[in-house]
């Protein structure tokens, strides 16, 4: 499907090519609308492209020549073991990571110029219980939090926030203090915050962490809904990819600082995942669905001690 068609469907008729043009002219003076429009008109032009991203922290090379792209409306998972650099990569994509080498383009623009088109949900969000901020207020800040001066009443902003809240199904707790909500509700609120400016790309860092089965499943379904119905490209990192497997179009995986991507069928295989995580991983097909599980749990050794299989046991896989 052509990018323009996808955008038109995705935007619910609210943001089409002309809107992009207007936004580019009004907010991105250094980048002409023609660049954005041109990239949109090219069929198959990626919404997000990362080329040769290299990040060094001290002497350690965390990411090396990472290259991948995400097309419009694509739902991608980003997986890798702890410390593989998933969060660093996400932060590089939105310009939060200091001094990454390489080239990132979102809708043909560098990350700093494309903030309006990217929604980001960070990994660690700790709202203080006494924070006098309701979900509605947080979503409003997603619309205009970067602007200076006091906010005057704006029906357009409130409707925009209202749409974002409805899109994530947060109507029931929109007027509650955000610090008093459950983890799943807070995640929905932050996704609504990220959705407030009707982004084209949503980056989520471990959104399913610390959620129970039901909340994780509901949140995964919500992300799938946002991708399908609103046409938003999604890049999500997760340790437990089971709730996402039925929704993913593609998986980008990080190992030893490098990235590769493939379809679900290519990546979700025992051999590939075991090599990726350095740990035996089993892939089970149950009821037409794939399930990824650790292959071996703690077991009793010869001397009576419990032995946890380590990376060495996966080397031969």
């Amino acid at each position, binding site marked *: 499907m052509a990018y323009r068609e996808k955008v038109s469907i995705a935007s619910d008729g609210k943001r089409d090519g002309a809107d992009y043009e207007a936004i580019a002219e009004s907010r991105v003076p250094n980048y002409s609308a023609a660049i954005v429009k041109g990239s949109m008109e090219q069929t198959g032009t990626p919404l997000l492209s990362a080329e040769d991203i290299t990040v060094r922290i001290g002497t350690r090379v965390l990411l090396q020549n990472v290259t991948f792209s995400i097309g419009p409306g694509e739902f991608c998972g980003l997986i890798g073991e702890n410390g593989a650099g998933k969060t660093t990569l996400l932060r590089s994509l939105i310009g939060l990571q200091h001094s990454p080498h390489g080239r990132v383009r979102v809708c043909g623009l560098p990350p700093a110029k494309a903030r309006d088109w*990217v929604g980001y949900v*960070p990994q660690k969000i700790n*709202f203080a219980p006494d924070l006098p901020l309701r979900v509605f207020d947080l979503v409003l800040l997603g619309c205009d*939090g970067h602007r200076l001066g006091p906010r005057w009443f704006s029906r357009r902003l409130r*409707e925009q926030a209202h749409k974002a809240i409805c899109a994530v199904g947060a109507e029931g707790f929109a007027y509650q203090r955000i610090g008093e909500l459950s983890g799943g509700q807070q995640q929905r609120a932050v996704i609504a915050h990220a959705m407030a400016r009707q982004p084209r790309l949503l980056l989520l860092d471990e959104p399913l962490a610390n959620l129970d089965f039901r909340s994780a499943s509901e949140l995964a379904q919500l992300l799938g809904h946002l991708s399908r119905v609103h046409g938003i490209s999604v890049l999500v990192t997760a340790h437990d990819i089971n709730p996402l497997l039925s929704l993913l179009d593609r998986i980008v995986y990080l190992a030893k600082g490098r990235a590769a991507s493939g379809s679900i069928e290519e990546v979700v295989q025992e051999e590939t995942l075991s090599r990726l995580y350095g740990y035996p991983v089993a892939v089970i097909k149950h009821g037409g669905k794939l399930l990824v599980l650790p292959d071996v749990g703690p077991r009793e050794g010869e001397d009576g001690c419990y032995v946890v299989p380590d990376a060495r046991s996966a080397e031969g896989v």
Partner: protein
Amino acid sequence: MLVWLAHILHFSFFHSGPVRTALLVGGCAAVVCAVIGVFTILRGHAFAGHALGDVSSAGGSASFFLGISPLAGFLGIAAIAAMSLEFLGVRRVRDQDVATGIVLGAGLGLSALFLYFDITTTSTTGAAVTVMFGSMFALSPSLIWPSIIVAILGLGTVSVLYRPLLLSVADPELAATRGISNRWVGMLHLLALAGAVALAALSVGSVLASALLIGPAAAALRVSRRPCVAISWAIILGLVAVWGGIWLAYESYYWFSGNAWPVSFFVVVIIFAMYLLGAPCQQLLRRRVRVAEPLPEGTER
């Protein structure tokens, strides 16, 4: 109520020059402390606010020694201390208390030196009490306009930064994602905090400045679910505390046969009572049944 008002007016409360000065300067301090205090608590800088108050005593005592405006003294040292906190690491949570403690110690040492000079060279024996605990009825009318200007600057800074500051308070990473520089926002907030602390130190003394900065804001935060509501409540509570304290101190002259009790004492007592009353109000607020309702289109509760 009318009898009570007539009683106040009968005693020429509003016709007294020192009272009018105290009401205006104290009112400025109450308003600016309320607004900035809310963000100070939310940013977790309550201890830094207290430390700035204590450190500003060096400026107050220096002003006695040098013969300059006490507001200039309080403000100058508080601003220098605020910048020192920023550069020593108040941004990093783990280093906050360490940096604050170091600046606090240095400031109090300087304060001790200037108070020593005050006592030994200028014979201003009441300087220590005035600097530490304030003396609102002794404020010069020439301080009214400088106080109003400092208050306007502080409120203007927070007004301009309102939304970025709020987003930064909610989550610094969310703010950074929107292109907000958390460092600049934090630095400007600290400068505004220095202005608020200077006004509070001028009014109720440097030691008690944190009471005016933190107390009304903390009580308001207990009973508010929205930032603008919390700020409004903090302003009301701050004004009630300061103006109520001034009135009680004025009245106490007649209660204790010609010896008026200090304004600062009454202000702090009222603030303490407000904070205690905030607890049951908070419980009542939590007990309210929240019914999930769909959002009305384009409207807000």
